């Protein structure tokens, strides 16, 4: 018998008495001021939130990181034209647009199609995520109802810049990934 069949047979023999699948459709947090709560949650996660209108997007990005070096934008109409993810290791600023934001925890959903250059999200020193203010949901229950996480190869909820507390539990921002995360919360 293959290991697969041995394990499955052992699981079948060991099955505890059946427990019904609980109904999770009723679960949701209290209805809240979505933008206000999202912003507050971002602050807790050490992300910066800038509120503006979409017409100002280009100047906002330019102003935020004028002095910095290499900028990679997944929103650009031109392609980076590269295949090796390692080539993004010198990225100073990476820009992309989220599908949704989650008010309860400040997370934004970024599937591969929105990232285009997946490695850049994790290699870049600074990350700017654009989010349409109308695309904020209340909590994770709603988030998983709105997005199909299985649609693409890869997708990630990101909440704040990378961090660690592995040395005496002192919070340090910028462990391996982004050292700063800015959310541009835009009205159309």
């Amino acid at each position, binding site marked *: 018998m293959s290991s697969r069949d041995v394990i499955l047979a052992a699981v079948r023999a060991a099955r505890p008495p059946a427990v019904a699948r609980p109904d999770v459709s009723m679960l949701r947090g209290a209805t809240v001021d979505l933008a206000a709560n999202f912003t507050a949650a971002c602050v807790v996660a050490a992300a910066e939130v800038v509120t503006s209108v979409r017409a100002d997007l280009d100047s906002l990005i330019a102003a935020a990181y004028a002095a910095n070096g290499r900028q990679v934008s997944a929103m650009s109409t031109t392609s980076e034209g590269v295949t090796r993810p390692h080539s993004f290791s010198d990225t100073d600023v990476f820009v992309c647009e989220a599908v949704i934001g989650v008010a309860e*925890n400040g997370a934004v959903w970024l599937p591969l199609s929105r990232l285009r250059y997946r490695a850049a999200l994790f290699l870049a020193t600074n990350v700017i995520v654009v989010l349409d203010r109308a695309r904020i949901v209340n909590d994770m229950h709603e988030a998983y109802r709105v997005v199909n*996480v299985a649609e693409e190869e890869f997708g990630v909820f990101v909440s704040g810049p990378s961090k660690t507390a592995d040395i005496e539990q002192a919070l340090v921002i910028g462990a391996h990934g982004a050292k700063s995360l800015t959310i541009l919360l835009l009205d159309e």
Partner: protein
Amino acid sequence: MSRTLTVLDSAPVDHAANAAAFNENEARVDWHNESLGLMRAKRDRAVEQVPEWEALRAVASSIKEHTLSHLDEYLTMFEAAAIANGAKVHWARDAEEHNRIVHHILVEGRVQYLVKSKSMLTEECHLNAYLEERGIDVVDTDLGERIVQLRKEPPSHIVMPASHLTKEEIGETFAEHLGTAVGLSDPTELTAAARIHLRERFLRAHAAMTGVNFAIAETGGVVVCTNEGNADLGMALAPIHIASMGIEKLVPGPAELAVFLRVLARSATGQRVTVYTSHVHRPEVGQALHIIIVDNGRTEQLGRPDFWRSLKCIRCGACMNTCPVYRRSGGYSYGATVPGPIGSILSPGIDLRKYAALPFASTLCGSCTAVCPVKIDLDAQLYRWRQIVVDAGLADGFKTVAANVGARVLSNRRWLHGGGAIIRIIMKLIPMNVMRRLSGSWGKTRDLPVPPGESFSSWYRANRPAKGPP
């Protein structure tokens, strides 16, 4: 159905002796106790902000019980979906088979450099040693794990692997291995040095290994939760991704996943969610995705009517952070991959003789059960293991209350000057509302004694949780 327990011939873990050794440095014990207490306090504050917390715990618990009671169906559902997604699925009965599969994948892919993100399963399988013996360069990339790897130590905590070390000790390790300045102990600067050191490792890795926090049966995807971004750097850069998971990691679908993502980080560190919650469903063009599903004793635990619920564990570490014995005895005192209350109910199922002492490394105060986000009845299972250990004749030396490990750890010499000393120490460690419940008849009929050197009210203000568990 009654099952025979494995009683292997291996050196028993002497938790009391290990704890006593840890207690020789009183300053360190106090520091360790307080630093984990801080985590517990952060968890309390995060939980207080979620009015539906108890409903979430109840649902999280029943989702896990439902999944475990239909586990064969969910495993095959997951396998079919993952294969359809283009992943290669492997099955491993034990640690040896798991390690062999990993090594085989690496050899086939001509991999010399492997980066790993945190995975308690690969610790359990002793994968690093296995691969290093075969010439693979293995680098743990989680900061805490890298620290203990450089020191050739195992992790002492499942969420914070280096929580037993001071920043000065870590500074010494980095000075020796990373060439940082001697005497450097600032966490920000040490982290910056590790970032540079590990970035180079990420860029040259041929393969990345990750653990799996949740596997979604309906969609065949795996979910990895991290704060540092190390798992993602590995996965995004290396052409081969190997994800190892125990059979108990399954959840039915994305709707259920939402419940666990709401409780995991809050319970672990007091964050609302981890920085990165990554969903891997298909390999990218030019990449290979391998998923290894591991048993290694889990089906045996599933078949034990008294203990199968321990498989609900989502490895948040909250039971460790709150445990008065763990906090004062340290993670290594358990001599097991998973320490603390949950480790003490998992380990005896793996090797009863070796881990016979662990169910006694508890005061049975119930604080672990009160914080567990999936409502595992940890204290009841510890008590049940004690009975089994005693029945098996393995309790010599620690079965009496006087020699009880928990009591010995807590009866630090400094406080042993008069009756009721142990109670005072327990009081210092356990939230008041839990204390009231466990203190039984005398707790109801008279005021609890005030620990010396502090007024009761100031002590209570400083020690009570913002909103404690029931």
